[in-house]
């Protein structure tokens, strides 16, 4: 079992560009959540996808959007990049949306916005 995988591992973009990050959940998991982790901070919840729909959303602007595919993999899209979007983006998967379902995290994608 490969666990949660994310691609790419690193990415450099310039302000105003758009970026797409990808996540493949752990085998058997149908729920994917995305987090933003700025340097020296804890992760901040962006949103959660289940059954190809956004189920919960944190306090992030509409520039952040996502998608979940029928195979449960997911994408995070960020438009009109700002310098402040530079962070480690973590994907986590779980077998369902319940809080007691343990989330398994991927290693993250490091996004640098210049």
């Amino acid at each position, binding site marked *: 079992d490969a666990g949660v995988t994310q691609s790419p591992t690193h990415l450099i973009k310039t302000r105003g560009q758009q970026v797409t990050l990808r996540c493949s959940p752990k085998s058997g998991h149908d729920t994917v959540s995305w987090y933003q982790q700025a340097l020296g901070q804890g992760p901040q919840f962006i949103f959660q996808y289940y059954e190809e729909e956004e189920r919960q959303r944190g306090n992030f602007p509409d520039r952040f959007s996502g998608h979940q595919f029928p195979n449960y993999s997911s994408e995070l899209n960020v438009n009109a990049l700002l310098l402040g979007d530079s962070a480690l983006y*973590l994907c986590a998967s779980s077998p369902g949306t319940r*809080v007691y379902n*343990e989330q398994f995290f991927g290693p993250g994608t490091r996004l640098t916005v210049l």
Partner: protein
Amino acid sequence: AQSVTQPDIHITVSEGASLELRCNYSYGATPYLFWYVQSPGQGLQLLLKYFSGDTLVQGIKGFEAEFKRSQSSFNLRKPSVHWSDAAEYFCAVVPASGGSYIPTFGRGTSLIVHP
């Protein structure tokens, strides 16, 4: 809104010494509580969680945590630290009611282990 405070940014201990990492939360009711560990270049791994019941929770890698309602705290402990425990530790809370189960993480405590 809920909040989580990890008052220690860095903690340094000697290998074999005991460890306690502090976590305080602000929330109207008892939330669900979690501790995660993050090693360099890796994602977060769940150490333990508290939902209800026994206030002393056992986790993986020899860690335990104690929930104290009166102090709104959920401190993580380990009796004897190993060099491999050097990592970043995050406390997190999730509301136990209200329909929005969005987690809030603390800013983390970096554990440094001296040989």
